[in-house]
């Protein structure tokens, strides 16, 4: 009999029929077969479960990844947006420089020219886009602002060595390059051709093939190291192609010449300006003047480049170096000094503006880079004595990150786990911000951080309070939340910033309100509870129910074993039990949730609840009610008083007075209580 395990099924060449055959062969009798079947079934179930588990696991990962991807996508979108913006700026810049040379044109003709130019430009762009839509993996045709199509058509490529047909091509001739595309044989969608290669016009040589044996109407394109031969359908088409190539080449040469001329003319004035002063009168007053180093003369251009390339640190360094050099003794009287210094100052302004923008949360700022990404701009701004602005912006960024992080926490499960998580996230981001802040800013800015932090705390607390202090939220879960927040806050003290006071001051009002509301709720319902009470022992129905009840009460500090009758009955009325639970909860929670300055609120709560209960009891004369009343006075009252003292260290004077008024004999706590009521706490 063979074992049944996964490995057998997992092999790729597993054939179920064969497996079953083998199995039946090796098994003796139906019973064994049934066993095998059972085993296989189990295995299948296990696998299914494992699969499910895996799927769930992967699913969570998948969701996380998906959100991450969507984040990235938006980032990419932003980036591409930025890039296209830049491109527009660049094209407008290049156009501007061209127009700058034609200043002699009258304004009107310029406008006209512009309009026509725009239309032509539009057409050109449309044409190129339509081409890129037809050609698979096409190069970016719109890269060059003045690219336009000169000619296109189908050609047959011939093997240059062997004169045999190779493939059908669709060829595009632009003014600056030749693009070869092959036909897609089984095309789907709008793509008709597949991009093969492109050659810049400047590296192309076109040869008219006069004689190539059997191949007629061909021309050759030499683009080292490739030689490509194309055959046309007719002489006219070939002539067209050759003419268009000629045109492209001529345009190219003209452009090159123009460039060359421009360069020459640009060089010329420079030469003149450099030479003429040395020949003119100026030579006489400052014969000993040292010329400025080249890099200082060109510093403004260099700064521009660095700013555009976003090397902010380098920009700053260059600026400082240039200023330092210019302020040296030997250039004191240099005529260009003032001018260059002024220019540097302008650049500095530009740079600070960019940096400030960089830090501005409202301006394309992305939380993904984290706080660290804001480091370089802040450092440079600090050096420019703009610490305050930088600090302000930096803290804005911090607020943003804190907000984003807190927002990231989802309200799932209990309110407690949510508050706990929020607290953790909040204080973590706060500590991140603090460490970064200490690195970036001088000590005297710390006050700004403290103000900021307490403000953040206030914002957070106002949010949490809205969610926690609601009528639906039980008093003890409110306590849990408050305690976890306090804990986090205490932990944060380790970073050297104690925000506990701020936190407590935020919590004060809602806590008082919550306690008071709770008190009122109890007093309100007390009357109905007491009048509705039948004044009989309460039946817990089962032993388990009884045990549950007993542990519940024990957690509150009351041992009620003495009051159990017939295993399932409690020798107390329902309203009494309810009262005991309420009053002990109020005291327990109240004492933990308040700070010392709110003790009177807790005292007041306990007192009012107790006294209202006692007032109702004194008018009721059913004997069982009197028994319960006695229980409250003799058992509950001392317990409450004792717990209170245990918790805060002194007596609850108000309640003590009440007890005396009702004639409760408060024995020295230790003796009477331990003999009568034991609780885990006191042992």
């Amino acid at each position: 009999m063979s074992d049944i395990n996964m490995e057998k099924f997992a092999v790729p060449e597993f054939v179920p029929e064969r497996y079953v055959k083998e199995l039946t062969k090796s098994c003796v009798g139906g019973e064994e077969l049934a066993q095998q079947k059972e085993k296989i079934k189990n295995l299948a179930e296990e696998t299914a479960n494992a699969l499910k588990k895996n799927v769930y696991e992967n699913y969570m990962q998948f969701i996380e990844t998906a959100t991450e991807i969507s984040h990235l996508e938006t980032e990419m979108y932003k980036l591409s947006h930025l890039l296209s913006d830049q491109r527009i700026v660049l094209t407008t810049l290049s156009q501007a420089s061209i127009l700058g040379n034609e200043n002699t044109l009258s304004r009107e003709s310029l406008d006209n020219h512009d309009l026509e130019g725009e239309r032509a430009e539009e057409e050109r762009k449309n044409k190129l886009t339509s081409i890129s839509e037809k050609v698979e993996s096409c190069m970016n045709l719109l890269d060059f602002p003045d690219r336009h199509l000169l000619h296109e058509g189908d050609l047959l490529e011939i093997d240059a060595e062997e004169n045999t047909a190779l493939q059908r091509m669709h060829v595009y001739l632009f003014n600056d390059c030749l693009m070869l595309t092959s036909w897609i044989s089984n095309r789907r969608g709008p793509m008709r051709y597949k991009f093969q290669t492109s050659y810049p016009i400047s590296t192309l040589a076109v040869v008219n093939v006069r004689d190539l044996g059997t191949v007629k109407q061909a021309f050759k394109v030499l683009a080292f190291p490739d030689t490509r031969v194309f055959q046309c359908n007719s002489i006219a088409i070939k002539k067209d192609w050759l003419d268009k190539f000629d045109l492209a080449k001529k345009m190219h040469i003209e452009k090159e010449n123009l460039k060359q001329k421009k360069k020459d003319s640009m060089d010329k004035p420079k030469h003149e300006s450099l030479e003429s002063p040395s020949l003119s009168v100026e030579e006489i007053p400052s014969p000993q003047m040292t010329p400025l180093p080249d890099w200082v003369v060109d510093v403004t251009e260099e700064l521009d480049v660095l700013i555009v390339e976003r090397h902010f640190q380098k920009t700053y360094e260059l600026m400082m170096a240039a200023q330092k050099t210019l302020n040296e003794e030997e250039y004191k009287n240099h005529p260009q000094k003032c001018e260059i210094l002024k220019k540097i100052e302008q650049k500095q302004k530009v740079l600070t503006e960019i940096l400030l923008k960089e830090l501005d949360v409202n301006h394309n700022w992305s939380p993904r880079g984290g706080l660290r990404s804001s480091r370089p701009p802040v450092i440079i701004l600090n050096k420019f004595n703009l610490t305050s602005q930088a600090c302000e912006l930096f803290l804005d960024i911090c607020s943003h990150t804190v907000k984003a992080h807190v927002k990231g926490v989802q309200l799932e499960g209990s309110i407690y786990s949510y508050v706990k998580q929020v607290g953790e996230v909040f204080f973590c981001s706060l500590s991140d911000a603090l460490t970064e802040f200490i690195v970036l800013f001088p000590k005297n800015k710390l006050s700004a951080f403290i103000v900021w932090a307490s403000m953040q705390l206030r914002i957070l607390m106002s949010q949490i309070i809205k969610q926690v202090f609601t009528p639906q939220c039980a008093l003890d879960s409110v306590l849990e939340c408050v305690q976890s927040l306090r804990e986090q806050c205490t932990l944060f003290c380790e970073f050297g910033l104690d925000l506990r006071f701020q936190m407590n001051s935020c919590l004060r009002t809602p806590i008082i309100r919550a306690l008071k509301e709770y008190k009122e709720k109890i007093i309100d319902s007390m009357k109905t509870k007491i009048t509705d009470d039948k004044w009989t022992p309460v039946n817990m129905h089962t032993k388990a129910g009884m045990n549950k009840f007993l542990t519940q009460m024990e957690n509150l500090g009351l041992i009620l074993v003495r009051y159990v009758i017939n295993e399932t009955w409690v020798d107390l009325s329902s309203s009494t039990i309810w009262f005991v639970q309420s009053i002990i909860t109020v005291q327990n929670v109240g004492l933990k949730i308040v700070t010392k300055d709110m003790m009177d609120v807790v005292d007041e709560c306990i007192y009012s609840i107790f006294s209202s209960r006692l007032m109702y009891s004194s008018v009721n004369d059913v004997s069982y009610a009197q028994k319960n009343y006695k229980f409250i006075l003799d058992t509950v009252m001392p317990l409450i008083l004792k717990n209170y003292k245990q918790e805060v260290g002194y007596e609850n004077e108000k309640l003590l007075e009440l007890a005396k008024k009702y004639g409760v004999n408060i024995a020295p706590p230790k003796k009477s209580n331990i003999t009568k009521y034991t609780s885990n706490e006191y042992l």
Partner: protein
Amino acid sequence: MELNVSELFMLRKIYMGGMMCPRLLAPGAMSKKPATQPTLHKVIMVGSGGVGKSALTLQFMYDEFVEDYEPTKADSYRKKVVLDGEEVQIDILDTAGQEDYAAIRDNYFRSGEGFLCVFSITEPESFDATQEFREQILRVKNDENIPFLLVGNKSDLGDKRRVPLDACRERAAAWRVPYVETSAKTRENVDKVFFDLMREIRSRKSDDSRATNGDVKGKRRRRMKCAIL
């Protein structure tokens, strides 16, 4: 299951052929091609405008002399000839003398294996220009020993000769290349210049193939010499 390279090549061709528009195909192009094409030698005609590059080419190709002059842009011709008993193909690229942009000429020169540098013996300017062509070719090919012939054309116009024979020979010697005088009109030496150049190309190619087939040392030695030169 394995296909050798030539079979693959055939397959590719058949496949490509299947996609082609039949109208575009020249008659016979798709018929079974000979197993191997004869060796191809690529010759480039260079020289100033009007010195007779095209006339020489046409005389060589078709045995005819074209009297009227029309500036060439860039034409190519191919012909099967028998070189010392072996069938070869010659590919002639007839370039434009008046190409006004020298940089574009580079692209033509790169494809050549041998050069016929033509001037007219009646035109000293064209002789002067050969210097520039020579330099450009050496720069583009980066090879001092590129097959190269200096050709003085229009030898039939001996009475109008303005470039002395000695000057021509001197220059050829300085370049260490053969000098030949031709007449496209009378066909004098026309075949000779093409065949001489093809021989040079052929011997150059066999040198190279020997070098790549193991005789690396010899090639390196030659290279070394070039570098010293």
